[in-house]
């Protein structure tokens, strides 16, 4: 019965009339049945051939492997770049911490100068205007002479009004004359103060113009 069934199926098969299910049945039969009539042995070979052919897979080609190598290179490159970035991100904050003392210094300078600035400005503007009278009375020796003369006149006439207030301030200025150099240094230092402040408050692009102007 079974043999007759298979024979019918085979006949149908070679007419191209079998369904996919029937063909599966045939394949299974020829694969599983150990003992077959001799005339069917070639069909077993045929169906096993179909079966084995279906197991063929596309071989991995050298080109594809090369492409994979390229992808691998790209991947390693990207990962290397990433590690470099990570290292940089570690080192950049380190440099910032190195800069913070400078910022602290500028902060100190800032408070230091802001306290001093108001009297300084008044002083710096005044000497420029007063320069001509100052030069007239700068020499300490004549002033002392005048003073001595005045004192003598004071002693003589008893007039206190003869004692000139201006000459007193002049002498005060003379007394501070050595400090004038210090003031000049201080003024010179002012520029550096702004340098320090620039680092803190101004963006890098503005630096150049400020240096050029000297303010």
């Amino acid at each position, binding site marked *: 019965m079974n043999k007759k069934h298979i024979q019918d199926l085979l006949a149908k098969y*070679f007419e*191209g009339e079998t369904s996919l299910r029937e063909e*599966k049945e045939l394949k299974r039969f020829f694969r599983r049945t150990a003992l077959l009539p001799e005339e069917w042995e070639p069909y077993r070979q*045929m169906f096993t051939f179909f079966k084995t*052919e*279906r197991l063929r*897979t*596309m*071989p991995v*080609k050298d080109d594809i492997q090369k492409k994979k190598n390229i992808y691998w290179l790209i991947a390693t490159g990207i990962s290397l770049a990433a590690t470099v970035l990570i290292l940089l991100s570690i080192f950049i904050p380190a440099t910032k911490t190195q800069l913070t003392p400078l910022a602290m210094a500028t902060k100190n300078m800032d408070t230091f100068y802001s306290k001093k600035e108001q009297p300084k400005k008044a002083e710096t503007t005044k000497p420029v205007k007063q320069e001509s009278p100052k030069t007239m009375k700068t020499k300490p020796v004549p002033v002392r002479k005048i003073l001595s003369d005045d004192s003598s006149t004071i002693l003589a006439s008893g007039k206190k009004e003869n004692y000139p207030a201006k000459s007193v301030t002049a002498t005060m200025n003379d007394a501070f004359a050595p400090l004038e150099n210090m003031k000049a240094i201080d003024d010179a230092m002012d520029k550096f103060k702004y340098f320090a402040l620039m680092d803190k408050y101004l963006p890098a692009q503005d630096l150049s113009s400020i240096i050029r102007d000297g303010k």
Partner: protein
Amino acid sequence: MEIWHKSFRDKLYRLALRLLNSSDEASDVAQEVWTRLWQRREEIPKLNNAESFAFTMTRNLCFDVLKSSRMKNERLDTLHENTLAGPLSDRVEMNEKLALIHQAINNLPEQQKIVMQLRDIEGYELSEIAHTLNLTQNNTKVILCRARQNVRQTILNFERHEQETYSGFTR
């Protein structure tokens, strides 16, 4: 989608291998078809049968390869080494009879090869194969029938020949 699965690319490869008889050429064709499909991936869902579209593409590319004179010259040399030196020969010892069946299918006309490949090896419905080849279902069935009978004829001829030589030897 099923056509993006690796197993489908293997199907394309096997069809190309059936037609070209060269593992290198077949994998090139399969790869090319796959990339072309990928380039047109947005159109794929609109197709009513993406698989037969891919098979048609494979067939056309294989025909192009076969047409080129370069291939014609090379084929005579590479035919035997490539067909027998495949993954199959590594796994299964290809005995004489399997080689005979291979040869029988190899000698078929292209259309019959394609139909037999898609039906008996890949297990596709006739309607799908007809769609691939742009034929009617009846025509496809006729081609399939001829292919099977040709293969059977080759096997039987060989058997008969073998029996004759065997009987001749015993005498």
